[in-house]
């Protein structure tokens, strides 16, 4: 909780909000009036969830053959989308934990929404391995326990690491998210009536804001942030090792972990922008999510975009410099082969379009940022598609090369996953305070008596 220090260090005070009461009023107002637009979006999300579940049930009923997966491309849209959503999940913890430890005062306004995004994105990502393996009724095989011949899972396999990493990430980010909301749920409880009051009474755990509670709470929060910080960096590293540990040309490189982490933060911050722009407008939170916040997020996008572009160039250079024909062939195939379009979408959306963020005018234009952030999300999905599908389709032996085309079932599940995510996010904006009330108060000047003001 970057309280007085942030103010003294001339951080980012919120000139647009003056009092503690204003924070409560403006944020809790969001919970009380859904409005027609919310219901329209919610109905669309629910319909999308129906498409998602329908496609999945169809695949369960018919078998995994209804997807386009086959030799040699055994990982397709499902794993691509899994990595995409895990990546999205990263910016939430970055903003809530890493920027918290660095005491970046601009995080206060956006961190609740981005943390919620993290939790829902991991919830979405976690479904994809289950969808991908086909026989979902065997999903419990993922749990590390010995089989009927008392053989344990192979802990040298990156896929087993991934189970641990994703489970830990989901648990820790959900705990971190919930813990941070408790004081705000108490604020919601104190203003709500009827059934809503009962709901907040239960989930706020009887929080009263006593010195004892705050004292341990702020310490626990620091330690959780300190644990979440290496976790963020490790989870996408482990996801990248799902690929890098295999000897597939195009995958087997040491650059993968930092490259994936940067890409994850890049796509996550972009999705925060995509979600924050309509949220700010629709719920009237302009005083909280100011242009300064968007500019800071744009800078983060620009930084991570540069890292990602640099990683792309390094990959091409090393493929050429290695002198390995399969490695060279794999990258030549990416740029000029059958999937050239996916590669060029990736390079354009992730490398070229974000270059516009060098201009201050673009960084300070909310509508420009909104459009750019959507391009980044498209580009980051294609990045994973390029890495996974083109590499698998073009391995060592020419007679084993092959093409992959996603089926309608896969496209239904891909689109449905966005609806599934949106469904939870929309529920979140109605049930939990979407801006962190207690933490916003830390950047609002505290009420002082006139005696003190006269003295200073």
């Amino acid at each position, binding site marked *: 909780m970057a309280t007085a220090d942030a103010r003294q260090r001339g951080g980012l005070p919120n000139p647009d909000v003056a009092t503690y009461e204003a924070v409560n009023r403006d944020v809790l107002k969001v919970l009380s009036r859904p409005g027609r637009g919310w219901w329209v979006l919610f109905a669309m999300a629910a319909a999308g969830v129906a498409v998602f579940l329908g496609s999945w049930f169809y695949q369960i009923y018919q078998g995994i053959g209804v997807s386009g997966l086959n030799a040699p491309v055994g990982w397709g849209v499902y794993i691509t989308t899994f990595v995409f959503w895990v990546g999205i999940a990263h910016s939430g913890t970055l903003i809530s934990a890493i920027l918290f430890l660095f005491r970046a005062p601009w995080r206060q306004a956006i961190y609740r929404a981005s943390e919620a995004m993290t939790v829902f994105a991991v919830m979405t990502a976690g479904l994809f391995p289950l969808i991908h393996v086909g026989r979902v009724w065997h999903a419990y095989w993922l749990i590390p326990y010995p089989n009927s011949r008392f053989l344990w899972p192979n802990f040298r396999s990156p896929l087993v*690491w991934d189970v641990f990493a994703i489970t*830990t990430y989901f648990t820790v980010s959900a705990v971190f998210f919930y813990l941070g909301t408790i004081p705000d749920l108490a604020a919601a409880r104190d203003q709500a009536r009827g059934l809503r009051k009962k709901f907040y009474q239960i989930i706020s755990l009887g929080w009263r804001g006593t*010195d004892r509670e705050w004292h*341990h709470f702020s310490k626990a929060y620091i330690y959780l942030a300190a644990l979440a910080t290496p976790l963020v960096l490790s989870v996408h590293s482990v996801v990248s090792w799902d690929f890098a540990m295999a000897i597939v040309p195009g995958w087997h490189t040491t650059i993968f972990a930092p490259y994936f982490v940067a890409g994850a933060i890049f796509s996550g911050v972009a999705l925060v922008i995509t979600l924050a722009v309509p949220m700010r407008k629709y719920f009237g939170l302009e005083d909280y999510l100011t242009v300064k916040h968007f500019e800071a997020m744009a800078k983060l996008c620009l930084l991570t975009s540069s890292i990602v572009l640099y990683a792309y160039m390094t990959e091409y250079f090393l493929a050429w410099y290695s002198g390995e024909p399969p490695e060279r062939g794999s990258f030549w195939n990416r740029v000029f082969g059958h999937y050239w379009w996916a590669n060029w979408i990736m390079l354009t959306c992730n490398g070229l379009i974000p270059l516009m963020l060098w201009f201050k005018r673009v960084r300070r234009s909310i509508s420009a940022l909104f459009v750019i952030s959507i391009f980044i999300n498209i580009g980051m999905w294609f990045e994973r598609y390029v890495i996974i599908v083109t590499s698998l389709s073009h391995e060592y032996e020419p007679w084993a090369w092959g093409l992959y085309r996603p089926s309608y079932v896969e496209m239904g599940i891909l689109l449905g996953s966005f609806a599934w995510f949106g469904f939870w996010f929309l529920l979140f904006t109605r049930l939990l305070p979407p801006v962190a009330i207690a933490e916003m*108060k830390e950047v609002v000047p505290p009420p*002082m008596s006139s005696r*003190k003001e006269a003295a200073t």
Partner: protein
Amino acid sequence: MIMPRRRQGHRGFFALFEHLDSTIEACKALRAAGHKGFRAYAPLPEHHLLEEGLALKHSPVRVFTLAGAMTGAATGFAFTTWTSMDWPLVTGGKPVFSIPAYVVIAFELAILFGALSTVIGLFINAGLPNLRRMVAYHPECSNGSFGVYITAPPAQAEAVKRILSGFDPAELREDPEGFDV
């Protein structure tokens, strides 16, 4: 609902303050007068209030974090080692006990156990979840005001009241019963 614990023969005083500095001063004055075990309420973790007003010491939550993380790391190493030694099977020409691979599992479990035990530490130390009926509370304390709650025997009641009203509270509530909070 579990009933709050009564403090026999005590009265409760809840003072609601609009200003941070008067809350801090009130806490200091109560401490100077030898009172202990009073509670301050705030809508945010205000460090000046916690440190200057109440002079709180280190929170023991950090011990929980450390113990949890170390247990997790040890569990991760022990689990992977034991299971691979249980049926030694050489795959890929790699050692059966592969430290770099097991570091990943140990690391993830260190984080997981550390985080969960931090939460347990918080709940134990902060007395959460607090399922008792909300006494000694004012809903304004989650909005824009600060508060101080103190219980005192009838003999000291007047003195406590005098101290609290000296700092210009917006509201000074006197309950016939005092509660442990």
